[in-house]
């Protein structure tokens, strides 16, 4: 396919603008196409879905995507049932399984595991998350959701809210937006959870970025607010967590002053950072965002089918 030369999906940093656009266009096709007209795309293909670390949405949406395209799923949802428990290296596990399957989808807690798997695998590897590092299919479905909702990514004004220090989704989004034009990113976080300096430096010049610790400061300018969870386990000091955890709880009361067409996104799971009162509102885009994981993952599976390594 024109504009898509990737043999594995490991990191959003590997994607050019053309690559991203090719995936989003293919995902739009997939969404329009009824299952009965796409269920032979992975006919006679085995996709190994290897979840060394638990996941709900990512694993189930990949398995649904494989099923929708007529492929078969092999794999495991827990490393405890794999040979990893016996002490086998990831490199060996992947090398062997790539002899059984036509593609590998994997999640692993070790950072860089997907890159290593892609090196040793004879078949394409799709990263379903490698620790705190990358989760490129999440980023692509986030971009797809923005494109679908606003008909564009160029020129979008987006607020990133919450844990910007450790959150891999917001880091990947920064690198992804750097491929587009005139994207304004408003980083909204408490001082202790600000966007890392190296990411700001890496993307400077390609995106216009502003930082604040006050939600209300740039709220009226936003087309979309991408909220993330503040994770307790990130804090050494529990007192600090208790002080911060409720700062950015979103509800009808603090989202009054938004522009027309404003939307709220979240990679899920939501714990308490978005009140359930917003779930049925027009601005809540997060359930549709999660559903968009299916056409995006179908697109990637279809595009990588038959790729020679």
């Amino acid at each position, binding site marked *: 396919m024109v504009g898509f030369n990737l043999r594995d999906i490991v*990191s959003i940093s590997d994607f050019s603008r053309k690559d991203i656009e090719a995936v989003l266009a293919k995902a739009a096709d997939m969404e329009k196409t009824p299952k009965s007209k796409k269920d032979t795309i992975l006919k006679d293909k085995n996709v190994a879905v290897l979840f060394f670390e638990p996941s709900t949405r990512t694993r189930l949406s990949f398995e649904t995507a494989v099923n929708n395209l007529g492929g078969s799923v092999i794999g495991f949802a827990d490393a405890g049932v794999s040979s990893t428990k016996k002490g086998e*290296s990831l490199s060996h596990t992947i090398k062997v399984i790539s002899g059984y399957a036509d593609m590998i989808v994997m999640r692993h807690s070790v*950072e*860089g595991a997907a890159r*290593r798997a892609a090196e040793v695998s004879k078949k394409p590897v799709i990263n379903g998350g*490698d*620790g*705190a590092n990358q989760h490129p299919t999440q980023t692509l479905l986030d971009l797809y959701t923005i494109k679908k909702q606003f008909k564009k990514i160029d020129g979008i004004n987006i607020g990133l809210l919450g844990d910007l220090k450790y959150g891999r989704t917001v880091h990947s989004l920064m690198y992804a937006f750097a491929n587009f034009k005139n994207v304004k990113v408003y980083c909204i976080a408490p001082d202790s959870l600000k966007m890392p300096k190296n990411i700001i430096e890496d993307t400077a010049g390609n995106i216009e970025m502003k930082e604040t610790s006050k939600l209300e400061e740039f709220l009226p300018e936003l087309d979309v607010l991408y909220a993330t969870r503040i994770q307790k386990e990130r804090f050494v000091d529990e007192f600090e967590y208790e002080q911060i955890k409720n700062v950015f709880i979103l509800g009808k009361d603090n989202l009054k002053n938004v522009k027309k067409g404003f939307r709220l996104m979240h990679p899920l799971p939501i714990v308490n950072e978005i009140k359930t009162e917003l779930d049925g509102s027009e601005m809540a885009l997060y359930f549709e965002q999660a559903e968009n994981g299916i056409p995006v993952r179908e697109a990637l599976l279809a595009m990588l089918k038959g790729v020679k390594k």
Partner: protein
Amino acid sequence: MNKDDIRLTPISNGTVLDHLPVGTALRIIEILGLEKAEDAVTVAINTESKSLGRKDLMFIEGKALTKEEIDKIGLIAENGTMNIIEKKEVKKKEKISLPKQASGLIKCVNPKCITNIESLPTKFTLTQNPLKAKCQYCEKTISGEEIFKAIQ
């Protein structure tokens, strides 16, 4: 014996590393494992330099550096000079430059990186001004003092 003779012990065969940034010579001794060298290693730290003001300088008797060793030095002493001495003559003089890529030269500082869990050679992508090294596996970026310490 005049002053110059005291400062610089000439070598017959080996390598002279000149124009090293101040503070790098001792680290280069560690990196090259020269504390166990059989022949003489003479080091001048924070010595005067016409072009740099101050510099470190090393005379390593009986040792020719490998490409990997030169690349490691290039990570902390870019723009230094390497002179290869044979029979007391300068046989070759070359500028030390930053390697294009760093394979196996730097240990990843991220304990959760696959290179620290399975025994794999590390791979780093280098960018300049300022120097940064990005792990090709876990994508952790290090710079400055972190690179200085992480050379293995």
